[in-house]
């Protein structure tokens, strides 16, 4: 703590930049009147940067860093600040004559900038007031038709709900409904979007006067495939401002500045606000993101409003590349990381995270005593080799892959087969891409085929597909089932093209319930009522039969020799989304949140907190052959993972930058097992559902909660109270405390019966003549992975000796340890 105060002592702020540079350093302009935003970025001795665009001298004159295309040819732009200077080299290539008119860039961009096509207005799933516009003008042809032809949009149909009345008036443009609504002349739920004399009004009026053309169809020179934003992460001091630079990347690779056309939205305006021009102004310390929409695409920037500079920011030791990324950002955000965890803190955490099991007292004692400098690595390797590791990760993947009676054909034999396939994959450390491939393309009677049989019927193609994409790509496509995705560039056509891969599955086998699963090869029935008529996937809007089509547009025609899902699986496991989603999921298991969070909600408007780290982890994962154990080892050997949970004034408020370990409630199953471990009385689970023709009444003695397969077979009120999911939908565990838990602690059987059990640890200890001090040490080591410190020991022993009944007093003390937050959390 003393050291820390010393560090905080302020030094004179280095007010003078040491270098300046222009972003971008080169640029091209392709039409007359096109503009390019340039930013003058200054670097300071402490490594921080500032935007000086508005304070620089520009030659030739470029107000606020904006260069406008005039005469063709090369152009040099230079910016001077004090005695520092930077130059950018541009080229203006304007074809003869005015730029070609395009609806998207000329008219659609107005809808974007004025918020008309935002998800809250006409860009919403259902549109507004009958008018539907695509978000950020992603589908300009559709938008054009709703305006020029008119009509009332309906979600589940391609037809207009009413007769189509144009929203423009070619004879008398200023009487167009489009203009009257936007200017508020006709009552408009969205209010006035622009004034009668505004440039937007003029542009639209001119367009209608010229006959409201669409222009040439979208092609590679006009279709935008991505937005690039500078900077990706912005660290801003309280009294600074910073401009954003937004560049559209065209399908042909060309870059176009769309800073002025983009729409900016700050997620948390308490932290920072953003002007129409993209100028960011800080409001309070903290981290937020700014969402940016333009040209059918969306992107996001992370903005950290940072505190005072920290003099003598310490050099943080780095165990691997994770630490470089994490501490790099912490330094920029002027947050000091916590100290390295103590041995006992580390050991309890890593045992729980790798094996879902508390460290036994002997392991704690041995670990603390060991002077081996490599002891942390060694214990990690030892843990990965334990049977508990396999149990625990089987359990984690059974959650994600939804092993449950009702999810796997309502037949315990099948959920067991499916669960066994997972266990075997984990035990053998099967490459994760292989696991995914087997699940996606499963045919016949193998374990993974059983996940296609929720409620004993083949799941619908669209739901199955949406689930696979959420599990393996970390993306939620299900919105696009009924409509184009409101926030993303997923179209409904893409969704259904992908769904069609799962549209030919059928089950066969009439003897009892022994189904096999196949994909029907041809477009005709097979004389089987299960098959006939179910082998076509129809587009819900157009009712057209669909051919399996990958997201990149590649069509996989049906063949009578090949399982179409193999092509899908090949494509999915090689797609960059696959490794990213996988490492993000695994990361979250160890930190309580993903680099993208929630872990299965990757989208351009939900940016990663550490995008480069995510990319690097994904690259490393691919390079290692999708080795889950290697990935976990990499994570837990990082210093970042091994930081203490103890905070300091600079990092106390941080929840997203891994400056200290965040306490996480133990998962329901892990908590119950831990209670069993500490009390020495394992839980017995009962079921009354028939499995394999036998009525299983009780699990074998010693079965742990993490070893249970189907949550819907093994009922436990305790597990429900602590958030065990039923796996009938993709699990989203809530670790939230609730009153049911509090009641259960005081009155429920789990705590009370286990403490009173004669075969339990407490009763044995009490009968063994052990001293109170010895019992206390044993309890602390077993439950908390540490010994009590001197003050705790004295206080507790004093309180104990004041109690009239030793047995009762110990029961109360044991109870209190099991109900403490220190016990119930991983920290």
């Amino acid at each position, binding site marked *: 703590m003393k050291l820390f105060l010393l560090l905080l002592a302020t030094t004179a702020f280095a007010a003078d930049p040491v270098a300046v540079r222009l972003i971008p350093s080169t640029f091209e302009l392709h039409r007359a009147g096109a503009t390019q935003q340039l930013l003058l970025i200054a670097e300071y001795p402490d490594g921080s940067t500032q935007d000086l665009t508005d304070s620089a001298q520009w030659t030739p004159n470029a107000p606020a860093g904006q260069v406008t295309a005039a005469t063709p040819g090369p152009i040099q732009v230079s910016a001077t600040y004090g005695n520092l200077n930077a130059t950018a080299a541009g080229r203006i290539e304007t074809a003869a004559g005015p730029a070609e008119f395009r609806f998207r860039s000329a008219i659609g961009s107005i809808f974007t900038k004025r918020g008309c096509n935002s998800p809250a207005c006409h860009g919403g799933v259902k549109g507004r007031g009958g008018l539907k516009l695509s978000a950020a003008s992603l589908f300009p042809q559709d938008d054009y038709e709703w305006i020029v032809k008119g009509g009332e949009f309906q979600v589940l149909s391609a037809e207009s709900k009413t007769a189509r009345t144009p929203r423009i008036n070619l004879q008398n443009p200023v009487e167009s409904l489009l203009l009257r609504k936007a200017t508020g002349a006709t009552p408009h739920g969205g209010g006035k979007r622009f004034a009668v004399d505004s440039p937007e009004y003029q542009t639209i009026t001119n367009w209608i006067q010229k006959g409201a053309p669409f222009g040439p169809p979208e092609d590679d020179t006009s279709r935008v495939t991505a937005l690039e934003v500078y900077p990706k992460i912005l660290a801003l001091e309280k009294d600074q401002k910073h401009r954003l630079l937004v560049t559209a990347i065209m399908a042909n690779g060309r870059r176009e500045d769309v800073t002025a056309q983009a729409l900016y939205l700050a997620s948390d305006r308490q932290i920072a606000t953003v002007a129409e021009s993209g100028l960011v102004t800080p409001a309070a310390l903290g981290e937020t993101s700014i969402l940016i929409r333009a040209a059918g695409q969306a992107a996001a920037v992370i903005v950290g409003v940072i505190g005072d500079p920290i003099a003598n920011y310490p050099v943080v030791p780095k165990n691997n590349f994770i630490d470089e990324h994490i501490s790099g950002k912490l330094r920029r955000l002027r947050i000091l990381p916590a100290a390295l965890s103590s041995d006992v803190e580390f050991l309890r955490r890593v045992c729980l995270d790798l094996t879902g099991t508390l460290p036994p007292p002997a392991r704690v004692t041995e670990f603390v005593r060991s002077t081996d400098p490599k002891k942390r690595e060694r214990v990690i390797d030892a843990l990965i080799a334990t049977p508990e590791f396999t149990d625990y990760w089987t359990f984690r993947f059974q959650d994600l892959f939804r092993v449950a009676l009702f999810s796997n054909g309502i037949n315990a034999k099948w959920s067991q087969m499916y669960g066994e396939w997972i266990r075997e994959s984990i035990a053998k450390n099967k490459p994760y891409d292989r696991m995914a491939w087997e699940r996606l393309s499963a045919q016949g009677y193998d374990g993974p085929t059983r996940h296609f049989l929720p409620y004993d019927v083949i799941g619908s193609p669209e739901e199955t597909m949406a689930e696979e994409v959420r599990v393996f790509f970390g993306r939620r496509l299900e919105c696009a089932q009924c409509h184009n995705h409101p926030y993303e560039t997923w179209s409904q056509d893409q969704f259904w093209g992908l769904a069609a891969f799962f549209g030919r599955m059928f089950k066969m086998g009439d003897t009892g319930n022994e189904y096999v699963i196949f994909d029907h090869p041809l477009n005709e029935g097979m004389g089987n009522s299960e098959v006939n008529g179910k082998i076509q996937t129809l587009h819900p809007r157009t009712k057209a039969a669909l051919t399996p089509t990958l997201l990149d547009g590649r069509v996989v025609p049906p063949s009578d020799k090949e399982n179409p899902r193999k092509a899908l699986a090949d494509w999915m496991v090689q797609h960059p989304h696959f490794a990213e989603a996988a490492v993000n999921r695994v990361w979250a298991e160890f930190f309580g949140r993903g680099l993208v969070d929630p872990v299965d909600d990757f989208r351009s408007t939900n940016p990663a907190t550490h995008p480069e780290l995510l990319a690097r982890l994904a690259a490393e994962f691919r390079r290692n052959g999708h080795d889950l154990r290697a990935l976990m080892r990499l994570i837990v050997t990082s210093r970042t993972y091994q930081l203490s949970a103890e905070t300091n004034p600079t990092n106390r408020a941080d929840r997203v930058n891994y400056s200290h370990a965040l306490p996480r409630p133990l998962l329901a199953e892990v908590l119950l097992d831990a209670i069993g471990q500490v009390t020495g009385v394992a839980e017995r689970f009962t079921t009354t559902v028939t499995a394999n023709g036998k009525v299983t009444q009780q699990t074998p003695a010693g079965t742990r909660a993490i070893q249970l397969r189907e949550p819907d077979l093994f009922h436990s009120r305790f597990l429900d109270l602590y958030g065990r999911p039923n796996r009938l939908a993709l699990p989203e565990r809530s670790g939230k*405390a609730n009153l049911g838990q509090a009641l259960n602690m*005081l009155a429920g059987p789990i705590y009370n019966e286990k403490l009173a059990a004669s075969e339990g640890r407490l009763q044995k200890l009490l009968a063994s003549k052990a001293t109170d001090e010895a019992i206390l040490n044993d309890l602390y080591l077993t439950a908390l992975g540490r010994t009590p410190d001197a003050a*705790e020991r004295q206080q507790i022993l004093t309180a104990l000796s004041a109690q009239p009944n030793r047995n009762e007093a110990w029961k109360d003390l044991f109870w*209190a340890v099991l109900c403490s937050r220190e016990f119930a959390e991983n920290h």
Partner: protein
Amino acid sequence: MQRRNFLSAGSLGFLGLNLADLLRAKPNGKAQSCILLWLEGGPSQIDTWDPKPNSAFQPISTNVPGIQISELLPQLARRMDRLSLVRSMHTRGSDHPQGTHYAITGHEVNPAMQFPSIGSILAKETGARNSMPPHVLTPHWEKARQYEDYFRSGFLGPEYDPMCIPDPSKPDFQITDLSLPKSVSAEAVENRKGFLQMIDRRYRTMVEGAEHAQMDGFQAQATKMLLNPAVREAFDLSKEPAKLRDRYGRDAVGQSALMARRLIEAGTRFVTAAGFHSNSWDTHAKNDEGHRDRLCPPLDRTLSTLLDDLKDRGLYDSTVVLAMGEFGRTPFVNNDRGRDHWPNCWSLAIGGGGIAGGRIVGASHAEGAQVTSRATSMGDLFATIYKAFGIDWNKEYDTPIGRPIKIANSLEDQTGQPLNDLL
């Protein structure tokens, strides 16, 4: 929320209700609570509420001119003025899991998310009263307990999950977690809390966690409840006159309905009385015997008693009573003289809480196979109930990822429309 606020709120609420819940506007409709008599398995509409020539049973007149129901429900026929019938239910899900999910949530099953049940939504919209749990289900399933999950709150959070309690007709009935076991005295509770503070002090100084204050609040609440007999007494059927218990029926159907009445009287908002678990309406074989001997008599007896009892206690006008299963049954019989599942067209009974009795909504064709007028979806039914409570049925909840979910979800992504003929 500050811990201090939390504690003061905590002393008033139940199951995790916080200040926001307490400050929420109280429902302004007539209905204050709802009892769902869950006819698990799916009754045959033509043998109950919608008599047809293809039923083995005769229609009888009721105390409402023009309304006839099956002769299997004679006591209810004399109370028809307190129940209306919807004869045009048209729903989804042709097997029990899917049908139950649909009937209870208004949504088809979807692996992408768990939808909240109507009971959880009503609990959230109306809030808790008198420290009572707002949402209860009894008896819980002994087997196939996965059905219980459909009654849960989905993304609304565990505070709106039903409290699922055992069969109150059983002699060993008791509610775990609502009373301290004999081995734990009130002094022990104090002792434990003292030790807990002692043990957690070091950790809490070192590590901050939002859950700590939350858990403290819940623990304070839990202690209050466990030491307060009023809540426990609400669950104690021995406080009811033996004669009334007899009239309800001493089986699971009767006693769960009586429990429901007792709980809503004490302040609970939504109770599912699911006593038909062990006596299912799923008559794939011997449909007629099933309805005649095993199913209609307890329905007739218990629902009639419930209506009388609510009336006697002045609760009828504030309590919606809904009797339904997850679907109807085929208008034709199968080889086992049974009737199979039929979601296309079925009937239910509803009344009380401002919902009129003695009326008919919709109609089915001659054999009860198809709806011929006012096709009614689950969303329409839910909208009717919300309207009776004074809740805006057009409301949508945003899921954690911002997907809007209608609280009254009708077919084809439409919002359910209230059955205004009943209001």
